[in-house]
């Protein structure tokens, strides 16, 4: 057994070449209904489903666990049994295409969206989008967020004409559902339940090493949406003020800095800026 024992195989049946061998082996890994490959098992090649089952189990369980690690909120909302079933299906439909497991599960939000049994739980899609964004933010390259000192170098007129470069970790998840409260299921289930009629939006940022989530209402989400799309600060504030009297431009700018959603600024002199908000900005700005 240990020493070189060439030509011990007296097989009448020719063994498949290696490409076919790995094809048979890998097909049987993700399909439990397939028989285990011939000539793979015990010493004489006798099929041994339990032995082969160790590999099946390793592959499927490790991939389900990886999906669960990427989508812990979804797993907790659905419950273990439901998640296992759905994850098993996902793994067989979308096995990883790269050894970089950081990106495994990236089709999960879309998969959930198209899964008939989950049609009555559309909020799950938004939670999954948020979790995918969280993981992307965690691994994306480092970038220094914009600081207040940089912003203060501009005159009030210039400030209104600023546009911003989105930080590579920033994602805004807009939702009709309480996406922030549902996202929190990754930590612990809320004691008082979740008001499913409430709409929340989630801003995901990573100014340094830790990922932050910030719940936003419609108006502030709209403000961030405009900023992240490259709109000028003046236009973003103007539009937001039109949307709601409760919008506070100073607080919005403060949030922009605190969350680290953007990295740098650019003055856009060519753009027509709505300066009617100028005084209010100046006042609020002083307090941040």
């Amino acid at each position: 057994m240990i020493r070189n024992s060439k030509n011990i195989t007296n097989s009448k049946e020719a063994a498949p070449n290696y490409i076919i061998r790995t094809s048979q082996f890998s097909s049987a890994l993700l399909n439990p209904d397939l028989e285990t490959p011939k000539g793979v098992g015990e010493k004489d090649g006798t099929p041994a489903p339990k032995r082969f089952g160790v590999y099946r189990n390793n592959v499927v369980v490790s991939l389900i666990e990886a999906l669960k690690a990427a989508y812990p909120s979804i797993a907790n909302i659905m419950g273990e049994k439901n998640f296992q079933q759905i994850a098993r299906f996902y793994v067989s439909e979308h096995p990883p295409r790269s050894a970089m497991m950081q990106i495994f599960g990236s089709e999960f939000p879309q998969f959930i969206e198209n899964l008939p049994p989950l049609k009555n739980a559309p909020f799950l899609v938004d939670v999954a989008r948020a979790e995918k964004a969280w993981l992307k933010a965690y691994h994306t390259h480092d970038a220094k967020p914009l600081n207040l000192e940089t912003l203060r170098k501009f005159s009030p007129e210039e400030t209104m004409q600023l546009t911003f470069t989105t930080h590579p970790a920033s994602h805004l998840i807009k939702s009709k559902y309480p996406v922030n409260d549902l996202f929190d299921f990754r930590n612990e289930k809320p004691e008082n339940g979740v008001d499913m009629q409430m709409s929340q939006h989630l801003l995901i940022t990573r100014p340094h090493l830790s990922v932050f989530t910030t719940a936003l209402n419609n108006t502030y989400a709209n403000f961030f949406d405009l900023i992240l799309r490259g709109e000028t600060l003046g236009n973003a504030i103007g539009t937001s003020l039109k949307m709601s009297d409760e919008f506070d431009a100073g607080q919005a700018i403060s949030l922009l800095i605190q969350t680290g959603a953007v990295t740098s600024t650019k003055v856009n002199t060519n753009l027509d800026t709505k300066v009617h908000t100028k005084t209010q900005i100046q006042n609020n700005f002083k307090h941040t």
Partner: protein
Amino acid sequence: MNATILTSQMPTSRFNSTDLPIRAGVGLKAEHVDDILQSSADIGFFEIHAENYMGAGGMPHAQLTKIREKYPISLHGVGMSIGGSGDIDAEHLARFKTLIDIYNPSMVSEHLAWSTHHDIFYNDLLPLPYTDETLAKVVEHIDQVQSVIGRQILIENPSTYVTFKESHWSEVDFMAQIAKRSGCALLFDVNNVFVSATNHGYKPADYINAYPLHLVKEIHLAGHATDSDDHGEKLLIDAHDREVCEDVWALYKLTLSKTGPTPSLIEWDNEVPTWATLELEAKKADAILINSYPDSKSAYHSQKATA
């Protein structure tokens, strides 16, 4: 992730190259990093799974940079699919090289196994038959990896649950041949020997006695789980989820008596224990390692007598 982004962010070879100290190391777990740094843990080296650091930035790289400032590291790939029937994934190899350029590990290792087939990554170390055809393929792949990264790699002996009818090389000779033909060195996993020997019905000591141990530059130790095969016989699973068992410690001593003192790693990847428990396991390996020096033989025996 884009390899060029990584390189542009971190200067190449910020860390001096050092040999792995002839001591015990442990597999690095993110949850232990704070404890390690705060206590300035007395550990020989840390081994990292290359794939865990293939993201572009953030916490994993920040943690590894801090660890690397204080400790030598060994880079252990788990996804190169050296034993695959297809081509090596060039993008994956490029990412692997980028990590080596940044962190300058003392050792670089991979497995005699495959994990990718037709672009699907199975996230497991899968077995291969030992034939002339697979030998040529494995050597070609090691050759490619060593050429691209510009340095020697170590290849680890596998733990397996099945054998292939067409295998006509023994595993020991297969390992010796790939080293001879590719110029790679070997990583000797003692737990894998114990797991495979139990699963396939041979004596682990025979395997160790026949192994080309002069090519071994690093040793792995780990715990395993027990299951049963199709006949209700014992089937060991390479679970890395508990302490190293007594049988494996004994085989480790046997191995060291032949290799001489060799850097040794505790792998504990599942049911990850507290840092204190893991550190204790490393201390255990360290104690055995110290006693493996030829001039410490008397000390080893006296310690054994009092134990």
